[in-house]
């Protein structure tokens, strides 16, 4: 059973029970009050009648006419006075009924000197008073009875009216409650539906929120939660994809040279090759072996740097550069790219060999990005007390998307020229690692077609 149905049934039941119980209590109290007022009225009427009859009896007794006939006429007169009020009088002497003539002595008898009020059962309710009225050569009793049929009839009518009204009220409440509950529970229905959608894999499902009660608060929190879950899942998916790409790239990088080496060796073995062709194939095999060797060294470097403390000392960037100047100048000359080194005598805290590797890779990248006649500039500046090393080229540049991925292992921004220059695709990953180990920051500024600037900011 749904929550709203439970609430609905419970509310209706409680309402009907409480309403009827309350009204019943009120009715009961009022009815009792009515009865007691009837009683009081009957008592006072009785006393009035009794004193009138007593006066007449005394005067009859004084005249010596205390006989049945005159007494009867006295009572008749009194009863007639109340004729339209369903009052009945009974008068008897020592167990013999005098009025009404031939009537029976009523029960229960009342002890002498007392008066009684009694009420018979519902339907024919009667209020009665009885007492010993007069004593003279025998005991005279008077009894007054009044039927309460008028009171009962009016109560019955009231009860019928109430029953109809109560039924009407209950039905009205049931209808209104139904409408309100459905409306109030609608957000819960929406929430359930959304949860269901998410369960089936639609992570972008959200709840529409209206108002500010606790259900909409729940919906709001649910949406926040869903947002977070979606974000986390897409993050994890991205990570998995990146990992897969890395594995793919790695196996590609590794298998390509092996394919070449194996293939050319097999070719020499099995095909009819001339001296010239043999030399060519040997050349290919050696180039590919060198590439494989370089890849393994770089990977080794990366692996060794992982989680390892490195020896640091004060080194000057000029010294670092001097160590690799020859190689780089030769490389620059081969590609027709000019190198400029504009450095002072700034010192940084670092590992000279690693810094050489960093600078070499950055400058090498710069040279490779340039066309013939290009220029790579290395600068050293002081920025707010920190040493900043910049390597700037006026080569092909990168798009923003390429810049984001540039430090990923095996990522190559310039795909069309890949691998032919014997680079591994790990250079900038290595640089990033070295920069991290030195507690420095590396940033790229680039514009497609205009050039790239790499900033390394030392702590």
């Amino acid at each position, binding site marked *: 059973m749904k929550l709203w149905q439970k609430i609905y049934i419970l509310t209706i039941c409680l309402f009907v029970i409480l309403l009827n119980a309350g009204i019943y209590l009120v009715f009961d109290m009022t009815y009792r009050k009515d009865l007691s007022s009837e009683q009081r009225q009957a008592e006072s009427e009785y006393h009035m009648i009794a004193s009138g009859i007593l006066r007449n009896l005394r005067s009859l007794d004084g005249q010596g006419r205390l006989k049945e006939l005159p007494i009867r006429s006295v009572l008749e007169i009194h009863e007639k006075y109340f004729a339209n009020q369903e009052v009945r009088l009974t008068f008897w002497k020592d167990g013999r009924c005098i009025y009404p003539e031939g009537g029976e002595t009523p029960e229960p008898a009342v002890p002498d000197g007392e008066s009684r009020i009694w009420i018979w059962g519902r339907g024919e309710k009667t209020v009665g008073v009885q007492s010993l009225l007069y004593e003279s050569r025998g005991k005279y009793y008077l009894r007054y009875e009044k039927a309460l049929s008028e009171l009962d009839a009016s109560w019955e009518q009231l009860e019928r009216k109430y029953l109809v009204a109560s039924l009407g009220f209950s039905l009205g409440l049931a209808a209104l409650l139904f409408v309100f509950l459905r409306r109030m529970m609608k957000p819960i229905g929406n929430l359930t539906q959304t949860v269901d959608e998410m369960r089936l894999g639609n992570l972008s499902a959200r709840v529409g929120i209206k108002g500010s009660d606790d259900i909409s608060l729940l919906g709001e929190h649910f949406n926040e939660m869903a947002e977070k879950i979606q974000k986390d899942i897409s993050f994890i998916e991205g990570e998995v994809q990146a990992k897969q790409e890395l594995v*793919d*790239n790695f*196996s*590609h990088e*590794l*298998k*390509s*040279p*092996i*394919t*070449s080496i*194996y*293939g*050319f060796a*097999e*070719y020499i*073995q*099995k*095909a*009819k090759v001339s001296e010239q062709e043999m030399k060519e194939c040997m050349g*290919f095999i050696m*180039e*590919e072996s060198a590439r494989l060797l370089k890849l393994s060294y770089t990977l080794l470097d990366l692996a060794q740097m992982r989680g390892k403390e490195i020896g640091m000392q004060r080194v000057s960037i000029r010294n670092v550069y001097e160590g690799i100047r020859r190689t780089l100048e030769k490389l620059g000359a081969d590609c027709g790219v000019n190198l400029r080194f504009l450095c002072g005598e700034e010192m940084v805290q670092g590992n000279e060999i690693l810094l050489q590797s960093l600078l070499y890779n950055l400058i090498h990248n710069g040279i490779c990005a340039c066309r013939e006649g290009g220029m790579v500039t290395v600068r050293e500046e002081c920025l707010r007390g920190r040493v900043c090393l910049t390597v700037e080229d006026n080569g092909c540049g990168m798009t923003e998307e390429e810049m984001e991925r540039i430090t990923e292992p095996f990522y*190559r921004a310039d*795909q*069309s020229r*890949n*691998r*032919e220059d014997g680079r591994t695709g790990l250079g900038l990953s290595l640089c990033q690692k070295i920069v991290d180990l030195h507690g420095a920051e590396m940033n790229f500024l680039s514009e497609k077609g205009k050039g790239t600037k790499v900033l390394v900011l030392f702590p």
Partner: protein
Amino acid sequence: MAKILVVEDDRHIRELIRRNLALAGHACTCCSDGMQAGELVSGQQFDLALLDVMLPGMSGFDLIGKMGDVPVIFLTAKGELEDKLEGLALGAEDYIVKPFEMLELIARVNVILRRSRKEEAVCIGNVHVDLRERSVTVGEEEVVLTPQEYNLLEVFILNKNIALSREKLLELAWGYDYEGETKTVDVHVQKLRKKLGLKGEIKTITKLGYRLEI
């Protein structure tokens, strides 16, 4: 001879494939990226395309859509089952994982080529072999070969210009489960040379085996 398009971004592997296929008598057109390959396909008719999957610019899986009705073999370092299934589901005829063996490459290429267009006849000097009829004539005269001799000759023709070891020849011409001596190969080769006068064409390669040179 078939015209084969090779799309491979690694210069050396490209060269390797070209040389290997040239041995089998196929002409290769090589290029290094998907864009270029698309242009080549629209301009010329190819019998087969060998595509690398991880290509700059456009992956081989994307490129296969541009190949039209040219049969495609993927040649890639991605050796996972999922990748193979994806490649084959895209309509490739075959999927070769790097590093591959020369014989394997040529055999697979030949299978695809045979499927689309059977090579009918081959001439070795004045020896004429009809591959459909399984008949051999020297000059005008028909020569009768035993079934085993013919099988061996066919293996040589399908792997022309490639040295085949005796073990490989046993495997290819006699079948995997043949438990014979490698001497059997020598005997049959001698018979072929004698019957067809192919002393110069079927060469003995020292420490390896034999090679049919055309």
